[in-house]
């Protein structure tokens, strides 16, 4: 997957969690939780969806890598290179 495809996938997963999520003006380098109505359970939903879609097992200590959209893409890009 390309970086853009990964970004779109993350936004699609978030939209599936909260269809009212507003992405206009979203700063890719700021924490998603500060900008969207997301809490820790929602982050676990993202982790679960990545597991379901791509069999990705993300260790708990690496959850902080999913904090911002940019960090998500950076973290997932090598893992989803072949996807």
């Amino acid at each position, binding site marked *: 997957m390309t970086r853009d495809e990964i970004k779109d996938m993350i936004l699609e997963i978030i939209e599936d969690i*909260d269809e009212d999520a507003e992405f206009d003006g979203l700063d890719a380098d700021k924490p998603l939780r500060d900008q969207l109505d997301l809490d820790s*359970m929602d982050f676990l939903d993202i982790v679960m969806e990545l597991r*379901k879609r791509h069999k990705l*097992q993300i260790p708990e200590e690496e959850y902080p890598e999913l904090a911002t959209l940019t960090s998500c893409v950076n973290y997932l890009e090598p893992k989803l290179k072949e996807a």
Partner: protein
Amino acid sequence: MSIPPDSSRIVITGVGLTAPGGSNTLAEFRQQVLAGRSGITTLDLRYMDPAPAGLCDFPETQYRKKKENKRGTRSGCIGVYCAGEALADAGIDFSEYDRSRTGVYIGLTEHGTVETENEVYNISGFDYNVDYWTHHHNPRTVLNNPAGEITMNLGVTGPHYSVGAACAAGNAALIQGCQMLRLGEVDFALCGGISECTGSFGIFASFRAQGALAENNDPTMASRPFDRDRNGIVISEGGCVFTLERLDKALARGARIYGEIAGHAMNSDARDFVLPYGPRQAECIRLALDRAGLAPADITIINTHATGTRQGDVEECKALREVFADCPGTRVNNTKSLIGHAMGAAGVLELAANLPAFTDNQVHATINLDNLDPDCALPGLVAGEPEELSNVDTILNTSFGMVGINSVVIVKRFVAK
């Protein structure tokens, strides 16, 4: 009989509900039951043939976002809607009562069955690898779930919990609310019952295995308590939440009063896992009458529990025949014939279906009663068409459940004294 002080008299001041057949307000529900319109349809079920069922269609996002409905349970979704509607109906915005002095008591027949079945089904798509089991499972399946979802939605910080009492649970929660108000534990109570049972194939399959699941080519004819051709229960979802207040405060704020809780009782058969027992039901009815200071003949409407099973209906009729042996003015009806068996919501939904009788003087009919079972022939049974009375003073609601639990609630027309 001495009249208790207004601070210990408990009144119903608001009703929020959703019932099978598209009734989402008390007025719509009353219209449905007076019209004799069945709310039963056919439901496709996982792993088994379709079955008749009562399904609700209400504005699920009226009181909370879709995101919260996705995270929570169907029970929570129904509960939040019913609680929001009950508050609006009662005209309460928490300027009248402190949220920390408000209690939420919700009756449930069961909880967690639907969520567990769904999750097992989910991991079946992943070769039963539990890495795919949802982190939402525990908060969804704790037994206080729907009551807790209501408190989160309303910011209520007083006590909340579920009352598990099989199909007597709605009444049990109503009784719990009364008791907590009388004890002074809370100043305001939201109480009622909820059923999400239609989401569980296992509940249908278990009733079928017992030979107690209704079948009929026409789902609207499937729920037929007291009829010779009845063949079981129609499972329904639904919810009903009442606002309960002490009379003195209700009067002080000028609340509309639907009725006063006159008496209530619960007891146990202590006999059998599933079979009901008329003599104990009769004891429960007598206990509620005694506590209400009423004689059997003082009851205007008996709203029966009968579910459409062969033995259950007959046992209840035996109990009623014994207690109400000489009560020519008493009428008997059954709401499940219209909406099926809403399990934990049954007692309160069925009571709600009858509450407006205090103002319109109508007794809604039992439908699908085409060939009365002689063993269910009760004097005063209202069938086919509603009956108008000169006055409705009291409603006695029965709700009984598995493992031998009985409940009776008596509501009387409010008369200030």
